[in-house]
């Protein structure tokens, strides 16, 4: 295995960098887009149903047809990597919109009322009180999206995207087991690194929520986002992600 890796180091490096680049944009985009959707979902019951159900429906779109339809819908070339980015963003939003809705709903009503009473404008309150306090649950959601997006990027090889998924398909076609294994390991590594970076970002951005602080137990704060405690919704099953890895066989 080492021999194959040594001989193809440049290829692996290039594919990894590409893989990371392809994953970052959908992760960031789904985070940003899901926040107004989450806000909307908390306006009333009808909107909540629309956002949540809409998200679930988006998630059921099979990736292959989506790749075929997208160029027609958004006017891109068939082999444009933008197709992949848009498709992954759609899946990301599908998962993240629900997380954002839950995250914003998880913010303590008393705190929100108090900030209104002391003179926050509705927008100021959303940005400076509700959004930061939704942080731990948002973080849990974006971790799921990050991992699933990284796995899904691999499917992009079907539409000619150059990423770690290429190692699966190429390795399978040519019967090089090492290549497939290296592809899987690198995907896992990238997912792990993303996860660690997100958790660390959470620590930096949400210092009040840091584990090990003296007041945590007393205040019964949200459980450690790194371990995903009871206050954080359990990550949904990664059906798509599984399909993504399997996509190398297609």
């Amino acid at each position: 295995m080492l021999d194959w890796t040594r001989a193809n180091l440049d290829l692996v490096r290039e594919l990894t960098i590409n893989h990371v680049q392809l994953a970052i944009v959908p992760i960031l985009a789904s985070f940003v887009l899901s926040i107004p959707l989450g806000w909307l979902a908390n306006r009333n019951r009808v909107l909540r149903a629309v956002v949540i159900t809409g998200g679930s429906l988006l998630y059921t779109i099979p990736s292959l047809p989506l790749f075929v339809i997208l160029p027609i819908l958004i006017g891109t070339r068939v082999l444009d990597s933008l197709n992949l980015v848009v498709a992954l963003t759609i899946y990301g939003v599908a998962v993240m919109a629900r997380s954002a809705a839950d995250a914003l709903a998880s913010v303590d009503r008393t705190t929100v009322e108090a900030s209104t009473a002391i003179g926050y404008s509705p927008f100021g309150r959303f940005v400076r009180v509700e959004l930061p306090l939704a942080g731990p649950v948002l973080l849990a959601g974006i971790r799921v999206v990050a991992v699933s997006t990284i796995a899904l990027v691999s499917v992009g090889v079907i539409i000619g995207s150059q990423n770690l998924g290429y190692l699966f398909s190429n390795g399978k076609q040519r019967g090089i087991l090492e290549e497939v294994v290296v592809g899987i390991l690198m995907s896992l590594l990238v997912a792990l690194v993303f996860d660690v970076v997100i958790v660390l970002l959470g620590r930096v951005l949400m210092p009040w929520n840091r584990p090990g602080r003296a007041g945590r137990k007393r205040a019964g704060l949200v459980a450690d986002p790194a371990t995903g405690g009871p206050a954080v919704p359990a990550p949904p099953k990664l059906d798509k992600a599984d399909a993504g890895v399997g996509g190398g066989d297609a």
Partner: protein
Amino acid sequence: MIEFESVSKRFDDGTMAVEDFSLVLPSRQTTVFVGSSGCGKTTLLRMVNRMVEPTSGRVLIDGEDVAGRDKVQLRRSIGYVLQAAGLLPHRKVVDNVATVPVLTGTAKAKAREAAYELLDTVGLDRALGKRYPAQLSGGQQQRVGVARALASDPNILLMDEPFGAVDPLVRADLQVELRRLQQDLGKTVVFVTHDIDEAFLLADQVVILKKGGVVAQAGSPAEILAAPADDFVASFVGADRGKRTLHLRDGDGGGKGRTIVVDGDGRPIGVLADGPADGAR
């Protein structure tokens, strides 16, 4: 001065929280609304900063109808303290105190400096300023809540059962502290509680409310104790059970002892001093 002019509030579910309520709350005095839950006391308090809008009637501050004021600006000009402090858990204590000045455009550094001074004012160690609210005890959090309400130097302070969630010892501490603060600062305080003892302790004017915001009696603690308006008031303040009735009894000690004061059950609660009280109102 705050004036309620025949104010009514009907909630969406049809319940009448307050009906035709009129009252003047004098400036620089503490008015305490006291009553059981459902008497509309919190509704009345929240009408002052437009957290609740009256269905009919007007609330005036210094002669100006609050309905004509911008909600956000109005709220920033009024201090608000609520149960369990309502602090922002993601902000350090000092930033919590500085919230309103920062919202109204004071530079952050300057607002923080003023916030540290306010921590002194409410009797908190400045070192606590760098902590998060969850790292403070309930009593400390409540003091931070008071400091935050004072930060914009408002004329009016609204306090919605602020000491309801802390243990009795700490509560007594906070009550004494609030009285000291009020003597120094002379704010127009509107205070809501269900605890008649707290009301008598803090109030210049006590307003005892029945269900639906009906005023059972309004007056100074002395007036209410001296002449309860009806059986409801007498029972509410405990006058009917002899709780408020005190008797004098000569102390023991072979004629040298001082006269002691006992309650209705004969339990000693103090000694009789010579001359009038220092803080006689």
